[in-house]
């Protein structure tokens, strides 16, 4: 299976001590590396106000990570772990590789177009010069 990129965000209860969050992150990390995948990025966004109340809580501790995996069952496993954990009140996994691919493709097209435009502009005067030379 080709490699896929996932975004994984989860929200912990705001009253969980930070060591507990770190522990949870490290267990997830372990689960990821065990399956021969790798974590590209881990960001702790910290306590943030949520847009709506979850479990009667207005705030949450956000953790964001990017995972690169070619193992299909990995996401299932991670979500199971998050679901079991008491501290986690919400999580979201988004598959992102296709969108990143699209972004890259569009960027390439844009660059190519940008590269073509100045060349055309320089080509036109050159042609005009040639004509001028021919007429002379």
């Amino acid at each position, binding site marked *: 299976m080709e490699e896929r990129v996932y975004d994984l965000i989860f929200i912990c209860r705001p009253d969980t001590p930070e060591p507990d969050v770190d522990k949870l992150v490290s267990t997830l990390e372990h689960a990821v590396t065990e399956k021969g995948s790798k974590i590209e990025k881990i960001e702790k966004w910290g306590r943030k106000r*949520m*847009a*709506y109340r979850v479990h009667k809580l207005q705030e949450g501790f956000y953790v964001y990570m990017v995972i690169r995996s070619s193992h299909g069952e990995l996401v299932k496993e991670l979500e199971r772990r998050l679901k079991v954990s008491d501290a986690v009140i919400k999580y979201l996994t*988004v598959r992102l590789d296709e969108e990143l691919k*699209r*972004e890259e493709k569009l*960027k390439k097209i844009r660059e190519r177009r940008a590269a073509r435009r100045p060349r055309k502009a320089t080509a036109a005067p050159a042609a005009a010069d040639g004509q001028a030379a021919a007429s002379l």
Partner: protein
Amino acid sequence: MAEENAPQQQQAPAPAPASGRPQGKPPGGARRGKRSFVRKKKVCRFCVDKADFIDYKKADILAPFLQERGKILPRRMTGTCARHQRWLTVAIKRAQNIALLPFAAGR
């Protein structure tokens, strides 16, 4: 030509706007007629920024495209192009799922 035009205007001052139109029209003069307001053309913000990807994690970018109560604003209000609106809705819905944006604001 100039001689012809000048007497025409003198003779008929009433239909001046009609005769004024085919002539060169200054922008101020044209607006003085029936249409008193000119709507400014809205431009897609993401096209201006040359966005190839709309990140659902940046709630502050997505927030202006929501109504007060949390509805997604239609294209005709924001001027977003079709392609970016499509991406935008997906991004907003993802952000809603992880509580970065509200499903329905209010109390």
